[in-house]
């Protein structure tokens, strides 16, 4: 068995481009999925049944089906049947953002619900409007509580971006699989891909552990 690790160095610029796309996708998705998750969480807490039920349906659906299938669905079904033409990158972002927003909404909802009723009353008793109470009193406290779960979701998202390789978005997995197909240096290229993910993901996993320790709610 002979391995030719030089292929990794030769392909490194392309791999790094892919890694950059992976990072970009992670940030872009989270930028969409945090407000998205918050809106969904508020909708689920709405007293209007139609609003809360539709948000619940959206969230449960995206949480209970595979992300990879959601991406396929958006990619093949929207353009063919609903005349919505998204680019590959657009499809990737839409799929990831809907999925992560669904998970974020559960995080935010439990964060909001976990703030004691008395905090609402205290704010209202000061003469604040309900929206004011939410923004000034509830949200800051809830934010601290949801940080650990949000951090975990962040790392899941970082890993999940690899799934958009199936629709040819040129992130790290797609680029690696392309190089593998071009060079047939399967073990070298796939190991390099795993190593690059490891180099990026390992510190994130450690950071998540730190966030969990730092913001742990004492109960």
């Amino acid at each position, binding site marked *: 068995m002979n391995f030719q690790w030089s292929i990794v160095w030769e392909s490194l610029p392309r791999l790094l481009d892919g890694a950059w796309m992976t990072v970009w996708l992670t940030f872009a998705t989270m930028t969409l999925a945090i407000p998205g998750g918050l809106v969904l969480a508020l909708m689920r807490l709405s007293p209007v049944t139609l609003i809360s039920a539709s948000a619940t349906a959206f969230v449960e659906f995206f949480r209970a089906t595979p992300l990879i299938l*959601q991406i396929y669905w958006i990619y093949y079904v929207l353009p063919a049947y609903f005349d919505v033409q998204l680019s590959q990158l657009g499809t990737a972002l839409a799929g990831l953002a809907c999925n992560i927003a669904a998970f974020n909404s559960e995080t935010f909802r439990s964060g909001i619900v976990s703030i004691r009723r008395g905090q609402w009353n205290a704010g209202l008793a000061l003469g604040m409007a309900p929206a004011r109470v939410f923004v000034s009193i509830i949200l800051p406290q809830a934010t601290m509580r949801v940080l650990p779960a949000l951090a975990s979701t962040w790392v899941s998202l970082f890993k999940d971006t690899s799934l958009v390789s199936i629709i040819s978005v040129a992130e790290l997995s797609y680029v690696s699989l392309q190089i593998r197909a071009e060079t047939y240096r399967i073990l070298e290229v*796939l190991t390099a891909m795993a190593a690059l993910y490891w180099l990026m993901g*390992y510190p994130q996993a450690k950071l998540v552990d730190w966030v969990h320790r730092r913001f742990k709610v004492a109960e």
Partner: protein
Amino acid sequence: MDVNLQPIIDSWPFLAKALGTTLYVSVASMVLGFMIGVAVGVLRTYGGRVLYVLLGFYVDTMRAIPLLVVLVWTFFAFPLLIGRSIDAVTAGIAGLGIHLGAYVAETIRAGLTSVRRNQMQAALALGMSRFQAIRTIILPQALVRMLPALGSLLVIAIKDSAIASVIAVPELLRQTQIVAGKTFRPFELYTAAMLVYFLLCYPVARAVDRLYRRVAHLGSS
């Protein structure tokens, strides 16, 4: 838009078999992940500093690397290292199980450390060995407490089995792709697959919630 369910009806035996594979791969990888996770979780909690760090490296590596990468590496690269090929289903179950095992291990460890220290002391005071105490007293309580988390991992195992389609495991998503490609009816096929996954995952999530409420008191020392 016209909806044509004929392709699904025509390929029904083919898709039903694929669903069987999905179930088999999910359950087998959950069982493998559970065995790895219990062993790693217990050894990291009670096995001393060296095992804690070594097995921590495994856990954090799996938390850092996407499942797709684990699967692709196991199926395409690993056989080159050992010099013989592995069939897709075996590689799929192994990759899914090893990846899931890290998450089970973290869950088990959280459960074990949440059981009060005095429970271990009470077991030791009866004359049990540490191994007996962990097996009969601490681990069962940890499992009960972690039932919701383990249930979520089962749901994740079902959903993640779809990723094994990238290494051509003939599970539901993979076979749906094949039928969708042949019949040019992606909407019907992918929508139907989506519904099937939902019908699998959603009841499991609910059932675990309900089960946990029934047994919660068994884990509260």
